[in-house]
């Protein structure tokens, strides 16, 4: 059974302009799923729907088999949630925030809370409004994980944090995950974080799921070819090749993204265009993100299957 299951989710903020236009995917037990997409792709909307804080106009969402809107309290008791725009009550002391969470989550682990609190070195008597952004986020993480949730939902959790704080945040999340087998659904714009944490990547574009693939498969089945441009080797011809998703021109060379492993891409290029002067490599996730979501190649080829 899936921990969270989205089925054909639609949601619009303005009539006729869908932010989500039929999103379907699931998060399995113990799985870490990264939700990727450009700004406005609907990641936060989807996460808020999973939390029961928004509702889908059509489609169904189930978290632990429950409707997060109708069974909001039950679902939230089993979920840990940290979001970039989440604000802890600024007028409360850290200890009061922790006390509030202890009372609301039956599975609260005092020992874990104490360990995390000491590790983050935050004064429990400090008011939230006096903390730095990183410290406030650490308090939010403490509250989100100390009840040992079955599902941890992180919406741009490291947004605005410096690299050291971000690393600390992610390492804590991963370690806790290893301890208790928690599933994680998280969105991030930091591809290095995604590569470090995620088992699976779900990429949203135009309100739909563009890619839903295990990270390892993604690394193996996509490649970048660096080709010297010439009269016979043009952007248009490359885009016409099987598996070519996007082509970008840089000075005298062309960078082509293939949904093929590097060896297969080399064979396609060699057999179709007789190109010998080229280099094919596996592609970094960030490069793929930019090429697929930031370029125009997707539109030219209609996107990956």
């Amino acid at each position, binding site marked *: 059974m899936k921990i969270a299951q989205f089925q054909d989710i639609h949601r619009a903020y303005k009539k006729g302009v869908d932010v989500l236009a039929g999103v379907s995917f699931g998060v399995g037990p113990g799985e870490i799923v990264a939700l990727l997409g450009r700004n406005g792709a609907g990641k936060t909307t989807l996460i808020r729907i999973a939390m029961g*804080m928004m509702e889908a106009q059509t489609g169904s969402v189930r978290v632990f088999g429950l409707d997060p809107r109708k069974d909001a309290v039950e679902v939230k008791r089993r979920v840990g*949630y940290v979001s970039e725009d989440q604000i802890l009550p600024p007028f409360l002391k850290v*200890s009061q925030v922790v006390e509030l969470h202890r009372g609301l989550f039956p599975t609260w682990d005092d020992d874990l809370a*104490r360990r995390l*609190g*000491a590790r983050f070195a935050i004064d429990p008597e400090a008011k939230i409004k006096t903390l730095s952004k990183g410290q406030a986020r650490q308090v939010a993480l403490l509250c989100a994980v100390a009840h040992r949730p079955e599902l941890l939902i992180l919406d741009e959790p490291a947004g605005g944090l410096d690299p050291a704080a971000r690393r600390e945040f992610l390492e804590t999340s991963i370690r806790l995950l290893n301890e208790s087998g928690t599933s994680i659904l998280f969105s991030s714009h930091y591809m290095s974080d995604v590569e470090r944490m995620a088992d699976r990547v779900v990429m949203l574009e135009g309100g739909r799921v563009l890619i839903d693939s295990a990270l390892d498969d993604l690394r193996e089945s996509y490649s970048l070819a660096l080709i010297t441009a010439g009269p016979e080797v043009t952007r248009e011809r490359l885009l016409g090749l099987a598996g070519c998703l996007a082509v970008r021109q840089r000075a005298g060379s062309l960078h082509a993204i293939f949904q093929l492993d590097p060896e297969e891409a080399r064979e396609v290029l060699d057999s179709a265009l007789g190109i010998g002067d080229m280099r094919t490599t596996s592609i970094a996730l960030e490069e793929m993100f930019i090429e697929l979501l930031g370029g125009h190649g997707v539109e030219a080829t209609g996107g990956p299957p």
Partner: protein
Amino acid sequence: MKLLAAIRRDDALRWLPLWISAGAGVALLLSGLYAYRAYGDPASGPATLTLVLWCAVAPYLAFGQVRRRCSRFDLALPLSSRRLWLAHIAAVLLAGAMVLAVSAALVVSISGLSGRFQGLPEPRLDALHLAVHLAVGLGLAVAVLEAARPTLAEIPIDRGRVLFTVASLGGILGMLWLLSALPLFWALGPLGLALALGLRTYRSLPPAFSLVPLAADPGPAVARRSVERDWAAAVTGRRAAWRRNLDLVRWVAGGPIAWFAYPMIFFAGMLIADLLRAWTGEPDMTVQNLLMAIYVLLTFSGLMTARLPLFDPLPVSRRLLLAALVLPNLAALILGYGAGRIAVAALDEPRDLVEMAEWKEGYFVRVPARYLEIAWDGRPPELGAPWGEGLEPMLFPLYRGGRAGLYSPFPVSAGSSPELWAFQIRRAVEAVYGRSIPEAEIRERYLEVDGEGRVVPRGEGLTLLADHPGLEPRDTGPAFPVVLLLVVSSWLLLFSIVLRSYRADIGDRARLGVFWGLVALVFAIMGLHLALAVTDVVEPWVTRGFLEIAIRHLGESWHGTLAAWLASALALLGGFLVALASFQRTELPARLVLKKGLLDLTGGSS
């Protein structure tokens, strides 16, 4: 030019139409008080007008962006803090002056209109005194409120600041009251104080404002504190669920706004308990008071929703969150009502409720409006004595030209016989006190016939209380549940509409439009009722009479009283459930904007 541009950009001028409307609303509410004082005691008119106008501008000074000296945008520009501060002061003074001008025009025109309709002379108004006093008050308020934390771009809001603001504005209200009794040159004192304070603040401004204050040195003791030990102490024991829920209520419905909200709601509760009538003798503000209570409840409960997003991700039911918003406000209203009833009981002196009052060329039997009756079809029945003498009572319509109206069930006229007078007075005494006095005694003791054959009171008139010790008015009926039903169900229904606008597909602007639009609607109804009263289209005492008669009838039997309480309880529950149904569908944004540019209603930022 740079200064002018900075003034135009200043946050103090943002939402000025809202503040002008709010000031006008307060002025509209209090214009009745001014008219009452100006016509009743002309000497106190100017002082009352000054105080009324100060009350109109005070919300702007308390809640407006007076404490924000410059925006972050201005902070990044090559402008000195002194230039920015001068621009800010000019903007605040300009905005305050505009609120005062509109409010003054409104109060003076409404009270003048009211007097003209009643054929009264224009009240005395010394425009120079008024302008000087208000200008001095405004200047001193701005100087005092701006004196704190001169190094900061924005004075932080905390409990101390709220108390300081309330104390300053209240103190200046008292000062204006004193000044109004003194010659004009006395205003030079506070004017000098304002200038001195302003100059002191100006001279202590840094070259550039800071966004945040310098952190205080934690000191070696704090630095040495063991974080581990602190956390071990922080995470011990477990609070009972009810205490946790109480904390939630405190946190959801608390904060800076609560400091203003609960006293205001408490006061509104006192008003609907009829305090104003007992205090000033002015009996006809019932409808205004009920609307005022709805307005105050709607405004503050709406503003309190600002903290809801902080608790939305937590496993807290919407029912509990809504209860946290509704119950403290309801408790403040009920406590205010209770306090109001105690005050009314203390202020009300026993007086004869059945009187022979003079009217035109004769007298009539006067009883409080609650003892009249309603003729829904506009045709009161002819009320006569068993021997056949009688007459059709006069009708007081609910509004001019309307059919339904009130009539006295004890009608007499100048030409009525002494026997009919005694008959009707006996019936009136029975209706009001529940006791009977023989008609013969009434005829002999209280009535006589003058030279023109008219029945007139003998001696001091109907001195019933003095002559019949132990006369107690009958129970006037279950007013509390009826008032509660009217106010709370209206509030909750309007509040449910506000909550319905909390959807992700409804933008901040539209949501603000719904909230403030409904608040303005309640104000508009208050204004409409006042305008109709001033132009004699409605008689406030008749409107009040309709309500009181209904309450009296309910109280005549135990099942009527029970029905009133049941209906009130059901209306409360129904209103709560309607609001809850709306609240269940809300989609709260991460940060709820309810008053752009005003207080940070969440109580600070993380």
